[in-house]
């Protein structure tokens, strides 16, 4: 009766449709996810096939079907499976692989080479920003995802893309539901869940997100320092339960659990990402309310991705303040720094740039770069992903064209403004690029060229 989930060859759904099963996409605490032969669909199979679990799943899927998920990258459940199997069929976008693939190099692999093959730092930041954004949107809808993990977060297999999907939608629960479960994937469960104190909520999601971010970028679990890694498996269980004897690996004051492995954090984390990691894994480990929200992570991750440059030697991404690529030592190539600031027109005074910059972004030489509405308008979520302007620098000046609407450039001496539409126009570095009409508030971009770093 208890056939191994990995061995099932065929399942039948509630409407009688048969599905031939293909490869294993992942296994977790609750069961396994298998591909349906032919692609586009997957089935989630549960190890617990009890009548209670069946009824619970049936009700849960009914509720999930009522949620307005159609605009979110969440694999929707389609049909329940017939007994004796307990599980359901879900959509699956083809060409996606578990995030796990970007978190653990195969044994014997050259770590840096493997990191770059997965798209390097920049792509990892972009994917994690998408994950944080998706969780933030779910939280904003009053939902909890419950079990963010490397096995149910799926990302584009093609490293040129940065699509991200969550599977296992049966995990979704209302943030305040009294019957919320307390399951987790070991390694990603908040300490209060591991210790059996309480159920899932947005703060347990926030813990899992912090671990996923830190681990995907640095290839190191933030709670598994050298002593834990080299010790018995029981030490690992204690560390993951938030035992105070094992502070997180980069705790600035409490150095009882340091890690010598993983990528150096200053290579992969900005100051803000390190700060959020500490908030989540230092004070936030025992005090859930101290954990940064998914929305804060999303902003910090997007900002970090915009601060990376592509190495002309190894094509890996690195932060713009390094004069050499930290992976291969190639000197940093010439680039243009873009600073985005608010433009505030006023009736009584001349219009002016207000305050410090609200965002920055890099522009490499001789490579067109698309600015999205996240930078040009300050939009968030999917609205922020709209392509707005394409810029190219030849090292001497810029060429600009709009992909949506128009923009205006103004000279520093206050000469006649020039409007730019979908036709490419050249502009000097010291001109100001406006993403809105001069008589209404909008964002602007200033440009600052940096020469190639000394070899």
């Amino acid at each position, binding site marked *: 009766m208890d056939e191994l989930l990995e061995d099932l060859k065929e399942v039948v759904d509630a409407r009688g449709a048969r599905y031939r099963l293909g490869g294993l996409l992942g296994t977790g605490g609750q069961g396994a996810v298998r591909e349906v032969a032919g692609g586009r669909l997957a089935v989630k199979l549960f190890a617990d096939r009890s009548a209670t679990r069946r009824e619970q799943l049936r009700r849960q899927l009914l509720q999930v079907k009522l949620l307005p998920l159609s605009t979110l990258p969440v694999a929707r459940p389609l049909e329940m499976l017939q007994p004796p199997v307990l599980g359901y069929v879900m959509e699956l976008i083809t060409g996606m692989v578990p995030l796990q693939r970007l978190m*653990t190099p195969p044994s014997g692999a050259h770590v*840096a080479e493997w990191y770059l093959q997965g798209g390097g730092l920049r792509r990892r930041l972009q994917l994690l920003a998408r994950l944080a954004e998706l969780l933030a949107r779910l939280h904003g809808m009053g939902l909890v995802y419950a079990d963010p993990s490397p096995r149910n977060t799926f990302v584009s297999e093609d490293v040129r893309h940065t699509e991200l999907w969550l599977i296992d939608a049966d995990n979704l629960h209302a943030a305040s539901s009294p019957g919320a479960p307390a399951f987790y994937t070991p*390694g990603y469960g908040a300490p209060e869940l591991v210790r059996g104190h309480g159920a899932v909520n947005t703060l347990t999601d926030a813990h899992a997100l912090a671990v996923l971010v830190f681990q995907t970028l640095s290839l190191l679990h933030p709670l598994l320092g050298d002593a834990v890694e*080299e010790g018995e*498996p029981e030490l690992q269980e204690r560390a993951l339960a938030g035992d105070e004897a094992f502070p997180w690996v980069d705790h600035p004051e409490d150095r009882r659990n340091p890690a010598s*492995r*993983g990528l150096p954090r200053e290579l992969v984390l900005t100051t803000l990402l390190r700060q959020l990691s500490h908030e989540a894994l230092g004070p936030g480990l025992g005090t859930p309310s101290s954990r940064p929200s998914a929305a804060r992570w999303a902003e910090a991750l997007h900002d970090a991705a915009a601060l990376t440059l592509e190495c002309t030697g*190894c094509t890996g991404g690195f932060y713009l303040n390094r004069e050499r690529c930290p992976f291969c030592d*190639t000197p940093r190539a010439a680039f243009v720094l873009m600073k985005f600031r608010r433009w505030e027109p006023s009736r009584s005074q001349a219009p002016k740039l207000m305050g410090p910059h609200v965002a920055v972004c890099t522009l490499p030489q001789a490579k067109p770069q698309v600015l999205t509405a996240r930078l040009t308008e300050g939009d968030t979520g999917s609205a922020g992903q709209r392509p707005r302007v394409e810029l190219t620098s030849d090292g001497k000046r810029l060429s600009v064209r709009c992909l949506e609407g128009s923009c205006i450039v103004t000279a520093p001496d206050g000469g006649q403004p020039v409007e730019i539409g979908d036709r490419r126009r050249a502009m000097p570095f010291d001109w100001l690029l406006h993403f809105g009409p001069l008589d209404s508030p909008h964002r602007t971009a200033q440009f600052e060229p940096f020469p190639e770093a000394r070899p």
Partner: protein
Amino acid sequence: MVSLKEFTVSSPRPLPVIVLADISGSMAEGGKIQALNAAVKDMLASFSDEEDVQAQIHVAIITFGRDGARLHLPLTPAAQAQWQDMPADGRTPMGAAFEQARELVEDRTRLPGRAYRPTLVLVSDGIPTDEWKPALERLLTSERASKAERMALAIGAEAENEVLQAFVAGGGQRVFRGDEAREIRKFFRFVTQTVTRRSRAANPNVVTPATPTDLDSLV
């Protein structure tokens, strides 16, 4: 091509599988030793296909027969194991095999402290011909072997059920029975699946007891 810097990441923890194989003279009958060799070889091949991130399956084979108990295959990552067929001859010194198993499991240079709980697998078709009780007692009361997952296959009516029962007691598994050589392969398919399932599980240190019918559902 530029040269990239070296970084280290943590390696998966070993998940040890230790097989105690009866290679006494009676195993030469009815194609049993051939079936056992083929089954273990299949198991090694399946294990070496497993690329999991948190657990790496290591295998050791302790044989007991004419030359007493011998370490036929030292504890090795499955992907690197060099297989040599086992010959069947001699008596059934199972007690000596228990002693070898205990020494291996308790030896922290061979089986590091960071390893997950081992799986001990015993296959026999006969009655032990040496003092097995004290050796088994020592094995089952030793610190790490007592926590191990234990599985046993009794081949034929001759196999001493009492010994195998005592071996699995408290290890979460029952004694499997087989009357023919082909059931040796079935049993090892089951062992393979139980171990790979554990290596892929979210927490490989948890030993999940399987239900008795598992064996038949594999066919």
